[in-house]
């Protein structure tokens, strides 16, 4: 997890966890609020059906519409403005909780929302998004890049990258609203409910996937971490203060793990901050490459592809987002061959694995903190690692994910048929918000990725460790593990 306002981090103790906890709880509140509002549809009260949704288009006038037919009178532009206004009000109020200037946030968010959503709309242009011959015929076009509608995420990412690398002053001006970790956490809370509806129809498969996710934890913490720590210490000569956050960032979960472990071993705050910069940049490279590799080589092993994204991409935002793009690409490729898989399983696999890995960050940070404060840099009793740090470092947004998953599953399986049949449509409206938060995440990740950082003096050695460890070990061992545990398992077919 990554606080966009890194400037706040410099003078704080590395073991302070105040900011990430606030953002986590905020994500829980926002995500649950959207989920609860969506569930009003079960009582035939549509509270969020006005949220804008975008379809693949050749005629721009037909690109946008309200999610629910009940609000069709709004028109596409009306739905778009309603969505912007609602998010502006809610997120600006959240700015108060984050102790940020509401005016600055509101102005920044206005720019972020409109640029990000415009990129998404462009990405849905038929020449970019249409996949099958039937779709191309429908839109009257003879060629398409076949990126699927979720290719719009890539357009949002590229828009952010352009701003970060060519308009740095504008990037600085909008930084208050560039919060990829907040946006993806809200999205993941909503995703819990969405995945519950998907899993409800195939509980046996869902349970199998969760059990297999345990292998991901073993790999990330015990195998990845040990190898990367050894490489950083022995081959590149980094000292312990650098190597531990670096190994955590590369092997576990990028930003949050680097910061948690940096705090646990009482490293200077500047170190996890620098590691975090690298994490984001390499995650962007992975998002731009891995989903397309997965489509080319793993189209017939869709859950291997999903698991691979969860194991190989090293921030929550990028991993879950990569899972979404991979799902879209692989479903499209299979659909072109006449095989229509049910959507949600590939994305759900990637998200579940990432969430599993996140759960144990606090525990691993405590283990390392215990070793450091008791055996390496022995400290006074009051400075030693304490059990309560496990809870302090636990990513709270996962609680939101578990709540929406449990409630969604109960509603889908434990209520009357009348209510159960309304659940998919109700949660579908919340899912539209999930898509919008994904768009904001992609754009924000791009804005934070200034590649000139890599050319900064001294960054070369850090980048070299990252490059060797990630693309020489983590990505391929992750693929092997995904294959071992998810090979041969396919999503159910769409009904």
């Amino acid at each position, binding site marked *: 997890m990554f606080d966009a306002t890194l400037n706040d981090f410099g003078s704080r103790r590395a073991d302070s966890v105040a900011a990430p906890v606030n953002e986590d709880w905020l994500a829980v509140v926002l995500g649950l609020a959207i989920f609860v509002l969506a569930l009003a549809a079960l009582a035939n009260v549509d509270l969020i059906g006005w949220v804008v949704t975008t379809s693949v288009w050749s005629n721009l006038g037909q690109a946008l519409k309200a999610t629910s037919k009940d609000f069709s009178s709004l028109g596409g532009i009306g739905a778009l403005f309603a969505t912007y206004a609602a998010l502006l009000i809610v997120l600006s109020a959240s700015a108060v909780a984050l102790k940020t200037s509401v005016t600055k946030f509101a102005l920044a968010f206005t720019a972020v929302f409109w640029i990000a959503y415009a990129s998404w709309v462009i990405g849905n242009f038929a020449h970019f998004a249409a996949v099958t011959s039937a779709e191309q015929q429908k839109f009257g076009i003879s060629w398409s890049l076949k990126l699927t509608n979720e290719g719009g995420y890539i357009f949002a990412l590229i828009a952010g990258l352009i701003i970060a690398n060519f308009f740095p002053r504008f990037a600085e001006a909008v930084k208050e609203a560039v919060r990829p970790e907040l946006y993806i956490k809200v999205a993941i809370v909503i995703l819990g409910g969405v995945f519950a509806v998907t899993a409800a129809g195939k509980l046996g498969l869902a349970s199998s996937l969760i059990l297999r996710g345990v292998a991901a934890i073993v790999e990330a913490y015990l195998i990845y971490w040990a190898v990367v720590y050894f490489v950083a210490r022995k081959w590149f000569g980094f000292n312990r203060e650098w190597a531990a956050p670096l190994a955590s960032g590369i092997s576990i979960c990028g930003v949050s793990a680097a910061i948690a472990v940096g705090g646990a071993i009482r490293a200077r705050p500047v170190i996890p901050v620098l590691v975090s910069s690298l994490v984001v940049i390499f995650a962007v490279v992975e998002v731009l490459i891995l989903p397309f590799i997965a489509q080319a080589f793993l189209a017939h092993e869709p859950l291997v592809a999903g698991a691979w994204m969860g194991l190989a991409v090293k921030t929550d935002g990028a991993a879950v987002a990569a899972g979404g793009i991979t799902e879209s690409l692989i479903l499209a490729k299979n659909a072109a061959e006449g095989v229509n898989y049910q959507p949600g399983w590939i994305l759900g696999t990637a998200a579940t694995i990432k969430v599993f890995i996140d759960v144990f960050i606090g525990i691993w940070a405590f283990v390392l903190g215990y070793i450091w404060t008791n055996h*390496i840099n022995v400290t006074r009793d009051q400075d030693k690692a304490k059990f309560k740090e496990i809870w302090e470092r636990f990513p709270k947004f996962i609680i939101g994910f578990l709540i929406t998953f449990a409630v969604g599953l109960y509603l889908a399986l434990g209520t009357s048929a009348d209510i159960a049949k309304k659940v998919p449509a109700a949660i579908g409206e919340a899912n539209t918000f999930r898509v919008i938060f994904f768009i904001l995440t992609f754009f924000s990740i791009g804005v934070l990725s200034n590649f000139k950082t890599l050319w900064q003096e001294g960054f070369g050695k850090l980048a070299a460790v990252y490059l060797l460890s990630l693309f020489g070990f983590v990505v391929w061992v992750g693929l092997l593990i995904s294959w071992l545990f998810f090979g041969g398992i396919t999503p159910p077919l769409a009904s």
Partner: protein
Amino acid sequence: MTQVDIREEVNRAAVEPLLPIEKKLIGWSLTVGVVLLVGLAILNHFIPATF
């Protein structure tokens, strides 16, 4: 935050040989990880995914 001289930060870090506790951490972590993975893989083989 003032511009951090990363090269200075990286270079001023003294070279530290691996301590015995670090070697134990790496060794145990890898060993337990591989053993657990092999065990899970065997379990996975005998308990295939249900649909």
